[in-house]
């Protein structure tokens, strides 16, 4: 995951989290939102007697798609090309941005409208286009709130989840005029009125913009069909009205067959917005209704994730965000602390794998979890997030003192006789162990914990003295 200037140079997760925890408004907004959606999800999942079977099928289909990804991508390419579309391959963010910029240039347009897409956020497309003099207008209500507020998204599904209605009203009133039609006079903070304001603000843009940029939820290898799920109708606007449509899609979005949709169209809406079905889903194959269509297939670190036997399951993710909504850590710190477009539990395993763990932030992400496992329970494609977290923790860089300590512990625990001697040594010198804080590098460990008391006698010695030694 290179090229995204968005969150570079951010401090580590614990530092971000500490700051976020002090924002009581943020915590209130998040708590309210995540609890609402949790309840809705649980109710509609409960409705389906075969949820676990669907979940197992979803996992199997994605595993098959990833295992044979080369074949399925070629199949999709052939189908789309046959249907009059053009397929481009981008190995990283820079190349994807270059391709999209070139395609927009070729149309002679300098304005494009966008439907919410994680992939284009990941590659920093809007910023790249801006540098080339092309303005990208976000059309999803939450993305609009984020764009107008010059803010970062904090949730996969509801990027403005950290904003409440009165903050949104303020953003609309202050910033809509800079991007087009100003907000109506005397705008209230009633959600309906706010949605109406967005409708008015974007209407003219929808009807006149000639290039649309989207992502996709699924790409069907068998037929070359692209699938976009949405709620507001801005997706349909961006997908159907422009003369040219460019879709940037991660290679892991492939589903082998048309039939596979019968699984994912049940799993995704219920896991995501907690609805039986989202208001609108668009499916199209190649150049549709006279439109020019380009698909940009994006790697940008995905093949690196695919190479990791344990970590690759993260690529099954369908971006539903159910794991964010149940996560006790996310609920308290919000999405910004994760320093990536992919926040929450899935972000904690996806970001360090896509970007690597060279930065302090990325190396700290596998620790942004209490390993409670709620994320795994709700995941519609059964990604064992705790398993991957632990796996990544073992791969993350560790401080020299920690490594030294663990090497020493390993040596001691390797032979019973060594442990026995170490325990005797510890009991003999127990008076020297500080009661509260350890000195040197150990201080970091005791900053949030007490030093455990060293007992007078080890269990081993006690056992020998009482039981084994016949002291009954």
């Amino acid at each position, binding site marked *: 995951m290179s090229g995204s200037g968005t969150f570079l140079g951010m401090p580590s997760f614990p530092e971000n989290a500490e700051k976020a925890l002090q924002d009581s408004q943020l915590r209130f*907004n998040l708590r*309210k*939102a995540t609890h609402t*959606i949790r309840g809705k999800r649980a109710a509609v999942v409960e409705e389906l007697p*075969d949820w676990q*079977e669907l979940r*197992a*099928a979803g*996992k*199997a289909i994605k*595993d098959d798609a*990833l*295992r*044979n*990804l*080369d074949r399925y*991508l*070629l199949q999709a390419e052939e189908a789309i090309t046959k*249907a009059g579309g053009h397929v481009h*391959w981008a190995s990283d963010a820079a190349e994807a941005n270059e391709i999209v910029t070139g395609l927009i240039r070729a149309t002679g347009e300098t304005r494009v409208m966008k439907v919410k897409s994680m992939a284009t956020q990941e590659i920093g497309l809007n910023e790249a286009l801006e540098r080339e003099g092309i303005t990208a207008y976000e059309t999803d*209500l939450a993305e609009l709130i984020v764009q107008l507020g010059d803010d970062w998204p904090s949730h996969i599904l*509801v990027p403005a*989840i950290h904003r409440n209605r009165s903050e*949104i009203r303020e953003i609309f009133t202050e910033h809509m005029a800079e991007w087009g039609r100003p907000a109506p006079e005397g705008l209230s903070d009633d*959600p*309906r009125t706010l*949605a109406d304001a*967005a*409708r008015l603000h974007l*209407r003219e843009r*929808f009807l006149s913009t000639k290039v649309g940029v989207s992502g996709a939820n699924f790409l069907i290898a068998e037929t070359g069909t692209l699938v976009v799920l949405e*709620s*507001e*109708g801005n997706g*349909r*606007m961006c997908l*159907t*009205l422009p003369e040219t449509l460019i879709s940037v899609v991660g*290679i892991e979005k492939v589903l082998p067959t048309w039939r596979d949709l*019968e*699984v994912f169209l*049940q799993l995704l*809406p219920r896991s995501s917005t907690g*609805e*039986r*079905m989202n*208001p*609108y*889903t*668009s*499916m199209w*194959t190649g150049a549709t*209704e006279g439109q020019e269509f380009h698909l940009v*297939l994006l*790697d940008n670190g995905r*093949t*690196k994730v*695919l*190479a990791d036997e344990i970590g*690759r399951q993260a690529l099954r993710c369908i971006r539903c965000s159910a794991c964010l909504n149940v996560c006790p850590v996310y609920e308290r710190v919000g999405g910004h602390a994760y320093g990536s477009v992919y926040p929450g539990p899935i972000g904690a395993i996806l970001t360090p794998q896509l970007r690597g763990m060279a930065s302090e932030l990325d190396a700290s992400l596998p620790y942004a979890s209490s390993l409670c496992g709620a994320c795994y329970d709700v995941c519609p494609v059964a990604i064992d997030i705790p398993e991957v977290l632990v796996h990544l923790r073992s791969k993350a860089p560790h401080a020299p003192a920690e490594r030294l300590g663990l090497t020493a512990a390993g040596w001691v625990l390797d032979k019973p006789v060594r442990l026995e001697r170490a325990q005797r040594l510890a009991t003999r010198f127990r008076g020297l162990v500080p009661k509260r804080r350890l000195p040197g590098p150990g201080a970091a460990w005791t900053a949030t914990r007490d030093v455990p008391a060293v007992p007078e006698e080890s269990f081993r010695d006690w056992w020998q003295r009482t039981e084994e030694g016949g002291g009954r």
Partner: protein
Amino acid sequence: MSSRDLILARIRSAVAGAPQTDVEEARGYRTSPAPGEESGRVELFAERVRDYRAIVHVVPEEEVADTVARALSGRNAGRLVIPDGLPEEWLGAVPATLERLRDDPPLAAADLDAADGVITGCAAGIAETGTIVLSAGPGQGRRALTLVPDYHLCVVRADQVVPGVPEAISRLDPVRPLTWISGPSATSDIELNRVEGVHGPRTLEVVIAISGPR
């Protein structure tokens, strides 16, 4: 090496030796309704569409024309977009003053925006999810027709309603442009409350036509 070849090579080396998955074995979910569920299919469809705060009428086939006329007059819809292939009898009771906007030659986006609404049929209805699927076929028109106008009146024949998502998928042709509609345009972006009416039609009215005596 092209990026295409590079990505394909990276994939092949990443998954080399990984085990294969038997997908068919994993398809243990429902693909047809349980016995006894079939009978309430249309009622369930109506109930689920209503849940999205759409307006729903369930009427015998011969009353479709009257229901359509009443719905249009209730909204004062004077300019109606009518896709090619719409059954003429559905418009049998509308007043002569109704302005019929045909999409031939294709209407400009601004014309669609100025219309009061659109009337269409559909390709399928899904009971379990309250979903209507359009496939740009006869009586449905291209995708923009049901998107830009603020009001969508949709006639669904009872025999088009299938029990669940799997039955709909097997009935649809993926090569056609498909639009799945579950209620009017909505957003949950403000404090995760569903609010109807953003960029698509703010009102969805559905007439479910039952053939034979009810």
